[in-house]
């Protein structure tokens, strides 16, 4: 079942161009629904004990393992649901899109790669599927076919390739030092072989490489340009989903192989710089989608800061920040699909589309962190985690988070003011329905209402994610279903 979450979307993506038109429409969503069900099952099972599958029945340090703990199951579920909500629209602007099958194929490939990133327990396998998500992302980002989008995608491709190269050098360095690629095996080998400047250089290279997709400070310059020019749904997928999966891969490496203060501090400092640059640039932005992109960089920075906090508390805060961003940012990009880019044109839009404006207010309040909404709990966990650490950089990070919240509030309320202002802007009549963002809003409110119930499973997932010994024991003792094959004829 674990491998099916990757195999089924890939199979569907390969077969999609061959099918008759009617089947094309339904195959993708059906497969995604199945993956969502698998994800729920995996997350449910993992609350008892995480499950491991050795792909190809080879015993773990040699073959590749998929490891499904609670976080992985939850992310598989989230991948399927978010991809389904952001499924490329077959008739944008009322006309059928001749390229829609290719877009659907790429979206399915992206979903499969994301699932594999969440599940994989092998460093090189993570790299392969990161690369698959990246290539599918380049294709989709260029898919709006405007010259601006193609220029932005070209820069994105260059930066992404540089990132992949860095990650590959990092992985090579780690394999050269430790002699294995399996994360559990590396976790055992790390204290004697990898906790030195060379090993940490490997981690830094991988961090910068995967950081391209998770909008890490220094390598995120592609984000505003691409998000402003690509189709909004693609921006939503990249900002909401792919960034989190790249982040999850880095976090697994951090927790299992590099649980050393130097590595955490690296994440902390880069995350802090990400928050500062992201939120300040968002304050200056004059384009709705660019603003969302910069604010996304800030949010991802907050997630990096949260994951830098050692122990389950930090992981729980990180998961909360990431999941909250996963619900809010795609919804906001869907609103941008409706409203277009220019902020000045939004004046008085609340009169034309009251529901969309109300939804925007809801998401904005959650982003800022107003109490009953999930954004508040995410920030609360983050701040209490930071406050629990010794003074110094950690408290500085807390201060940065608090200060930038004010900046966030200013620019978001400025938009709300424009939306409900008296001036009449030239915003065009709504182009698409608010169904997508409405569903995200329902999810958000649902999470807010069930926050007390969600705390316990979330705590459990964070503990599982932090449990290195448990991970190693589970993977090394993974059951091989086949008896060791011998050299005799069948």
């Amino acid at each position, binding site marked *: 079942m674990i491998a099916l979450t990757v195999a089924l979307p890939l199979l569907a993506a390969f077969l999609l161009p061959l099918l008759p038109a009617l089947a094309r429409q339904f195959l993708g969503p059906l497969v995604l629904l199945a993956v969502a069900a698998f994800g729920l099952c995996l997350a449910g099972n993992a609350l008892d004990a995480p499950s491991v599958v050795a792909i190809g029945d080879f015993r773990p340090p040699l073959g590749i393992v998929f490891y499904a703990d609670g976080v992985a199951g939850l992310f598989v579920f989230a991948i399927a649901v978010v991809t389904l909500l952001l499924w490329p629209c077959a008739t944008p602007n009322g006309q059928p899109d001749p390229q829609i099958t290719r877009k659907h194929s790429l979206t399915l490939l992206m979903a499969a790669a994301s699932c594999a990133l969440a599940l994989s327990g092998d460093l090189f396998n993570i790299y392969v599927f990161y690369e698959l998500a990246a290539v599918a992302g380049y*294709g989709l980002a260029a898919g709006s076919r405007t010259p601006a989008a193609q220029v932005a995608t070209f820069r994105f491709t260059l930066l992404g390739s540089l990132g992949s190269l860095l990650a590959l050098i990092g992985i090579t360095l780690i394999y050269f030092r430790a002699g294995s690629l399996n994360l559990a095996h590396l976790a055992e080998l790390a204290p004697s072989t990898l906790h030195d400047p060379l090993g940490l250089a490997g981690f830094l290279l991988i961090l910068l490489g995967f950081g391209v997709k998770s909008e890490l400070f220094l390598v995120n310059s592609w984000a505003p340009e691409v998000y402003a020019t690509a189709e909004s749904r693609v921006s939503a997928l990249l900002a909401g989903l792919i960034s989190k999966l790249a982040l999850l891969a880095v976090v697994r490496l951090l927790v299992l192989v590099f649980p050393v203060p130097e590595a955490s501090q690296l994440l902390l400092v880069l995350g802090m710089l990400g928050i500062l640059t992201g939120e300040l640039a968002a304050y200056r932005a004059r384009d709705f989608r660019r603003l969302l992109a910069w604010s996304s960089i800030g949010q991802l920075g907050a997630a990096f800061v949260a994951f830098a906090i050692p122990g389950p508390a930090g992981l729980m805060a990180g998961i909360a920040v990431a999941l909250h961003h996963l619900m809010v940012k795609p919804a906001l990009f869907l609103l941008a699909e409706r409203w277009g880019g220019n902020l000045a044109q939004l004046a008085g839009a609340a009169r034309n589309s009251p529901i969309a404006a109300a939804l925007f207010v809801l998401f904005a309040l959650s982003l800022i962190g107003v109490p009953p909404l999930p954004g508040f709990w995410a920030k609360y966990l983050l701040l209490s985690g930071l406050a629990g650490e010794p003074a110094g950089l950690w408290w500085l990070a807390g201060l940065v988070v608090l200060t930038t919240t004010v900046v966030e509030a200013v620019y978001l309320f400025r938009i709300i003011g424009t939306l409900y202002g008296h001036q009449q802007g030239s915003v065009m009549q709504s182009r698409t329905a608010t169904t997508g963002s409405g569903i995200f809003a329902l999810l958000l409110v649902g999470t807010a209402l069930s926050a007390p119930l969600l705390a316990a499973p979330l705590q459990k997932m964070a503990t599982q994610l932090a449990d290195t010994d448990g991970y190693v024991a589970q993977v090394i003792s993974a059951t091989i279903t086949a008896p060791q094959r011998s050299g005799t004829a069948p």
Partner: protein
Amino acid sequence: MLTRYGSLLFATGFAFLLFSLFIALPMGEPPTLAGQAILNEAANSVGAANIVTSVVLAYRGIDTLGELSILFAAATAVGLVLGGQARAPRPSKEDGAGGFILQTGVDLLFPLLLVVGFYIILHGHLTPGGGFQGGVVLAAALVLPVLARPEESPSPAALAWVEGLAGAAFIATGLAALAYDHAFLTPLLGAGQLGDLFSAGTLPLLYLAVGLKVGAELAKLLLRLAEEGPAA
């Protein structure tokens, strides 16, 4: 001007970083724990005389599936970016055709290339080579006749069918293992006699799927680029 110096500075710094990492690496034998263990047991447990193949298709089969998907994603993305632009009219017999030497050469080479391509694919588990390498030779075999007789290019629809079905066959072979209570992508059919053509279980089938997919995909990609050429 400033950006140029910036790029130069970046490149120098990057080179210096790689150089200092290289200098810091300890000399001597690196500990290839996983690699050595695979070398010791692969011949017996997988049955492929070419150890590289047992790593590519058995131990790390899902990586290969990922690589195939990356190629597919790249080809699809190229189609997405280029497709739908004003196509150059299909070249007529007079203006596109190659000369006598090219046409005769292609006629001679075409069957040879096909044989070499399939040979490399089908012997991937015995000798160096395999699906990726053989697939590229197949793609060359398909594209070469187009140079000589542009009007007789293979139909993209047929290539798409080969590509899609070959990819599906790879995954289906992997899924078949689930029916026998094994994990995804477990090699079936037993290891056989080391060095025989019919050995290493399902690995040759997987390589055949890889070869056909790579060949069809590259041919489709090259034909599409050739089609776009005159229009640009």
